[in-house]
């Protein structure tokens, strides 16, 4: 493996920034959710990179748990989006503002 570690971390940071921009700019709740997934995966990439460069398996075990968590989170989040759509018939987060008033 000849790739230096800061390139791995740089890729993870770029990916995380892309995810943050998606959360801030998009108004469709599903796309916002997908951007959160991108951020989670950026963190996973950093974990795997460090695991490889320190020769320590613990980072990969952490990634395993993050994936489990992400699966649970996606299932619950999409159920929330479905029930929101059922009540308000929109997935536009700028129209979902009932807690605001």
């Amino acid at each position, binding site marked *: *493996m*000849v*790739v*230096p*570690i*800061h*390139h*791995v*971390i*740089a*890729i993870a*940071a*770029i*990916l995380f*920034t*892309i*995810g*943050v*921009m*998606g959360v*801030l*700019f*998009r*108004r*469709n709740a*599903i*796309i916002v959710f*997908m*951007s959160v*997934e*991108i951020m989670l*995966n950026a963190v*996973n*990439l950093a974990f*795997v*990179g460090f695991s*490889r*460069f*320190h*020769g320590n*398996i613990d980072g*990969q*075990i952490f*990634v*395993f*748990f993050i*994936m489990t*968590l*992400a*699966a*649970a989170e*996606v*299932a*619950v989040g*999409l*159920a929330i*989006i*479905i*029930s929101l*759509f059922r009540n308000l018939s929109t997935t536009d987060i700028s129209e979902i503002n009932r807690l605001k008033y």
Partner: protein
Amino acid sequence: MTSILFYMFASLLIGSSLFVVLNRNPIYSVVMLVFAFANLAALYFLLEAYFIGILQILVYAGAIMVLFLFVVMLLNVGPDRARPQWAAMDRWWFGGMVGVVGLTLLALVTRGMGPLRSSAADIDDGFGEIAPLATDLFSRYLLPFETAALLLTVALIGTVFLAKRRI
């Protein structure tokens, strides 16, 4: 050769993630996110995390993204219409600030990494395959492992409760 492959997959990953965020049709976004996750799995393989790479394809590109695709098609979400709110300046302000902060962090990380070990450590045979991961998972990490199982059960029940119209 490995590094050429690494940079190729990394640029594909970043390009397709950008496409996910910038595209206005949710279906295209989902499909491109599947592609991005496949590229990420390739990066995991190149970093010698074979089991994690396979999990990435099975769990993320398989199960999670199919769920996303189902929901997008079920709700019949079309492309974003005109974007009146995109012109809201405070959003661009905030986003721009986050972008600048992120890139500054990036620059700091890439410049200040000198003292960190930049060449990879020596690894044993079978690093990142199932056997060493499973050994740790069922000895040192047994309690978190069982807690994750409990969490999945709770998520399953919660999902049914939330999505079902009448229980």
